[in-house]
């Protein structure tokens, strides 16, 4: 056997294994030329800013509503790997489009109940002690359709309003200290520079604890759709408070109870009263492979994998059922398990080729156990729209199909 042909065979073999490992049907459309041995062809020259391989096609899934400026696009979580979401695939949710902003001339205003109101340029902010932290951001409307009987058919549509990045910036507490927070200051109102000047009120305890005024994401400046040049990262809290295009911080004694804190981002209970300032994202998980829309190719070994996260610190355990909920076993958790970040879990499964249901449930460091959909609905009814974190069940068919389970 010539070394060339064995190399070629190795390439084909690893492509096939790669397909199997994703748990879904491998893309059999080899790009043209792949059959040829490309190993000895001189490749392309170096470049300034990298692009992914043209045969890699995963994308965000944009909404289908009329105004795509007040819409969202969903991360393909079943196809991303590890815990970091590539910046270009981080989900979007905007209320008035993505503003075109430049670093030059951009200033953040900090005022209200402080000793000295201050403005900061981007250079000013970068000269404070800096910090990086890996945090998920999840829209509280993520999985919203799971409240209805018509649950989502796949991971992207059901869970794609969550992503995880390494964020870099300055602690909000450093800015408040610099301006001299007054004791009467109990809330911080954060406002963006988008067309509707989207803003939220944030309790001062959280502002002093772990909020980041971020200018960096995954090693470079924020993407425009992620708030360039500046946004808040509020670890473990609903995405809407992570105000993008951050331009103004005002310290106040009271919250504003403005539109995004009353008409939206409030959770309607069965008695007609709505919970307000529901910031925490509670523990949640989903099996991303095998998952809805994928296919298991053959019986025998199947790696079950997925993501778990909690806004209350670290994930302590993820349990898997492969027998429709009769028994639960612990999955392996990828280290490091970081607070308020995605945790990747894996579970070795020998599939016997019979129809069954599989699901994951997360346990966080507070001891909280991810609830079933039924127990969530029993307490909150079907109309609270936000903060769905129920267990997601996938149906595996005897022929290897994976589908959602309608309630």
């Amino acid at each position, binding site marked *: 056997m010539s070394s060339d042909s064995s190399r070629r065979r190795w390439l084909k073999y690893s492509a096939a294994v790669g397909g199997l490992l994703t748990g879904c049907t491998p893309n059999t459309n080899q790009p043209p030329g792949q059959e040829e041995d490309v190993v000895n062809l001189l490749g392309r020259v170096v470049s300034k800013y990298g692009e992914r391989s043209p045969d890699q096609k995963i994308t965000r899934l944009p909404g289908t509503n*009329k*105004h795509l*400026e*007040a819409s969202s696009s969903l991360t393909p979580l079943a196809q991303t790997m590890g815990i970091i979401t590539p910046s270009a695939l981080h989900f979007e949710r905007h*209320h*008035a489009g993505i503003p075109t902003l430049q670093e030059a001339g951009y200033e953040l*205003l*900090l*005022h209200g109940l402080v000793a*000295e*109101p*201050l*403005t*900061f340029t981007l250079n*000013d902010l970068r000269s*404070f002690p800096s910090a990086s932290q890996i945090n998920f951001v999840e829209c509280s409307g993520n999985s919203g359709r799971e409240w209805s009987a018509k649950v989502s058919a796949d991971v992207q549509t059901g869970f794609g309003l969550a992503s995880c990045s390494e964020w870099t910036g300055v602690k909000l507490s*450093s800015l408040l*200290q*610099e*301006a*001299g927070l007054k004791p009467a200051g109990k809330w911080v*109102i954060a*406002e963006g520079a988008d*067309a*509707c*000047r989207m*803003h939220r009120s944030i309790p001062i305890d959280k502002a002093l604890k772990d909020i980041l005024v971020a200018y960096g994401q995954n090693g470079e400046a924020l993407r425009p759709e992620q708030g360039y040049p500046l946004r808040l990262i509020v670890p473990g809290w609903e995405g809407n408070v992570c105000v993008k295009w951050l331009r*103004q911080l*005002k310290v106040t004694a*009271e919250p*504003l*109870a*403005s*539109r995004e804190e*009353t*008409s939206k981002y*409030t959770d*309607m209970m*069965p008695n*007609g*009263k*709505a*919970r*307000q*300032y*529901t*910031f*925490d994202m*509670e523990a949640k998980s989903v099996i991303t492979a095998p998952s809805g829309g994928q296919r298991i190719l053959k019986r025998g070994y199947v790696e079950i994998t997925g993501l778990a996260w909690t806004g209350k610190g670290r994930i302590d355990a993820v349990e898997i059922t492969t027998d429709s909920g009769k028994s*639960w076993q612990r999955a392996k958790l990828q280290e490091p398990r970081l607070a308020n970040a995605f945790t990747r879990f894996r579970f070795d499964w020998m599939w016997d080729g019979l129809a069954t249901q599989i699901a994951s449930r997360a346990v966080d460091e507070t001891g*909280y*156990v991810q*609830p*079933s959909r039924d*127990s*969530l609905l*029993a307490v*909150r009814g079907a*109309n609270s729209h936000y*903060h769905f974190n129920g267990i997601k069940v996938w149906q595996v068919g005897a022929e290897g199909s994976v589908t959602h389970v309608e309630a």
Partner: protein
Amino acid sequence: MWKHSLLILILLPMLMQAQRRLEIGHRAAEKVIAQQDKFITPEGKGLPAGKGTAIEGKLVFERRCSRCHGQKAEGADDAALAGGIGSLGKPKELRTVGSYWPHAPGIWDYVNRAMPFKDPGSLAPDQVYAVVAYILNLNGLWDETAELNAAELSKIQMPNKNGFIKDARPDVNRNR
């Protein structure tokens, strides 16, 4: 002597804390603050001068709003702004400005900062007062001919003013 240095050792961190400033950033000019701080409290603090009636507001609404929100704000491609009062928690729940929003100054604030959707900030304060008067009128909360201004708007009692409660999570227990 060493008593003194001990004192300094103890006091130094405290002194540094009191000092605390890194001297980064610039003092914000009053003008910059006034330009940006347009927040309006639930009590109506921050509402600018201006006035308008529902009759005037109807004209604004039909020209600038109805194509997205419906002729009588009943909802079209975008949200209904009228109706649904008393429907919260019922099977045919309809959340609108009238049925769901807890305070009236917030309507002025939102319309002023975010609407019309494609051209926010294009309405003069009088037009905002007028169109808010019209939305309130469609909800049976404001008289057709009465003049709405900051003081009047702040006095309006919205039907759902007591409709919001505190977060009570974690509320769903273990389910093993």
